[in-house]
């Protein structure tokens, strides 16, 4: 993988230190200004705690956890049988034997990371779709806003609480898979494998947070929880079912003849890559597969010159992360975008009782 001058700048330690030195005091000022705006520190905490306990006690979360736990067990089982059958292939990926737990499948069920890519949106949507509108329909929102708390606490605590629940779930699952792997395989993960699994977990949390924020936005926008749930599911279905269809149509229409110039073919490949990347689930699956399969060396189209002299071998974690940096920032940016949308919509609204 070629490292451009710009990418190199991001890699040096000095750059980050300088950035941090610049950002931290600003953040600190912002925080103290926020605190001075009148809220008492413990309030945010107790609101988050209440939201978390609401989540944990609700049937919805119990059902979702059960569902995800089942898929986790199922895919773990299939990956274990696949590992048993495959034996050693002499492939480079064998150096990362432990990661097979997350990626390998005997064909009866998709591997774990594909499952999360599929179920994650559902988890996010179902944790957020009635965040604000149900409070309003129960008449608790106007009572809540009559208390001495900044208005954005309401929406921030909803987000933080759901994020905590998701993080807890994913870390528990990942560690459970690692534990099961230890027992079944008798091989401990190497530090780099462990770090890869951790980054995969963090990435999954970001991905679910994206859908969570989208559904919180819908819950601010739509008065009926059913409508906002449906809107969230519609967006999810659009990106998993319809967008690939449309993209394929466009790609077919734009396919150049095999005798076209190399430049045309290269441009077409770029176009195809960009079109697919507009999907958040594609961003997620690209990022996860790169993180979990160290031999993935590039995601976009490569020219022959770029391939020249490359030794096929696994990438170190840092390089894999660098490779998925655009996908990662894209996901985080989308998450923030959804959060900002719901924040704006909520802050500007006049809240009447019921």
């Amino acid at each position, binding site marked *: 993988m070629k490292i451009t001058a710009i990418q190199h700048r991001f890699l040096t330690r000095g750059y980050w230190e300088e950035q941090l030195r610049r950002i931290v005091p600003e953040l600190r000022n912002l925080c103290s200004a926020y605190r001075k*705006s*009148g*809220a*008492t520190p*413990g*309030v945010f905490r*107790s*609101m988050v705690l*209440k939201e978390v306990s*609401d989540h944990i*006690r609700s049937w919805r979360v119990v059902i979702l956890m059960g569902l995800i736990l089942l898929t986790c067990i199922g895919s773990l089982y299939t990956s274990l049988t696949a590992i048993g059958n495959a034996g050693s292939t002499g492939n480079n990926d064998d150096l990362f034997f432990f990661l097979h737990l997350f990626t390998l499948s005997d064909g009866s069920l998709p591997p774990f990371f594909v499952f999360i890519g599929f179920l994650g949106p559902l988890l996010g949507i179902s944790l957020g779709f009635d965040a604000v509108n149900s409070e309003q329909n*129960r*008449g*608790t929102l*106007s*009572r*809540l*806003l*009559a*208390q*001495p*708390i*900044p208005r954005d606490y309401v929406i921030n605590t909803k987000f933080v609480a759901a994020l905590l629940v998701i993080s807890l779930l994913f870390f528990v699952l990942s560690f459970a898979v690692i534990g099961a792997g230890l027992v079944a395989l008798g091989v401990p993960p190497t530090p780099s494998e462990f770090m890869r699994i951790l980054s995969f977990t963090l990435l999954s949390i970001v991905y679910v947070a994206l859908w969570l924020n989208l559904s919180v936005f819908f819950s601010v926008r739509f008065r009926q929880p059913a409508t906002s749930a449906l809107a969230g599911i519609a967006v999810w279905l659009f990106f998993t079912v319809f967008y690939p269809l449309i993209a394929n149509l466009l790609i077919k229409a734009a396919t150049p003849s095999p005798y076209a110039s190399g430049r045309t073919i290269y441009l077409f490949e770029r176009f195809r890559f960009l079109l697919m990347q507009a999907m958040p689930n594609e961003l997620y699956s690209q990022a996860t597969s790169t993180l979990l399969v160290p031999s993935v060396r590039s995601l976009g189209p490569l020219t022959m010159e770029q391939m020249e002299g490359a030794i096929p071998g696994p990438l170190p974690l840092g390089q894999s992360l660098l490779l998925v940096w655009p996908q990662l920032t894209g996901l985080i940016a989308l998450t923030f975008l959804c959060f900002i949308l719901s924040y704006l919509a909520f802050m500007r609204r*006049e*809240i*009447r*009782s*019921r």
Partner: protein
Amino acid sequence: MQSPTIEICNLTKKYGDFTAVDNLTLSIGKGEVFGLLGPNGAGKSTTILMLMGLTEPTSGTVQVCGLNPVSQPIEVKRRVGYLPEDVGFYDDLTGPENLIYTARLNAIPDKDAEERAFRLLERVGLDGEINKKVGKYSRGMRQRLGLADVLIKNPEVIILDEPTLGIDPSGIRDFLGLIVSLSREEGITVLFSSHHLHQVQQVCDRVGIFVKGRLLAQGDITSLARQLFAESEEQNGREYGLEDIYYRYFEGGERNEDNSDSA
């Protein structure tokens, strides 16, 4: 003279072309029970939202406890208890749990909160329902819990928006009695919005009649009655006087209410 607790000056709120509150000027002194009397859609709730800083006025100023709700909403909310119309609670929590949560939002330590919650529940007559989930409360019980919820932060002012809606007549009497005694004992200023003339008459020191966003008259009950009759005599035959408005908007509903009261 003491500066008034609530001071509203030329307050106007417009939603597009529709004027919800039109040039309202009003002041309410400390410890006073003020009744905002008006038909549905008169702009009472909008006025209250502006007092709480929950919506911004189009023009004019509001001062609550010497604070501006637009620029210092949190400070205002610390001092003012607001019971919204048709108040809601977390149905899966019990009454005391709901109150303690509100106390936490007001940064009251849990120990004090618990003690205060049980005292207030006793005060509003809900001490027998401590272990019941609020989802199983009746409408009247919820309303009384609402009053306890407003009081848990030790407010200087309480604002009640149609608090007697859905309570039976004897319940209303208790509820109103509670409000009056609170105001007398603890010097709490009360702003009471209602469309029932009879209830307002029972508890309020002063009344403002609010129709279509305008404050038509204000004063204590006797002077208001004098004002009503005097003006209607003057304007007789020319246009609708205050008395007509009074009959038109309140009397119809009030007669039924009186019957059920005496029954």
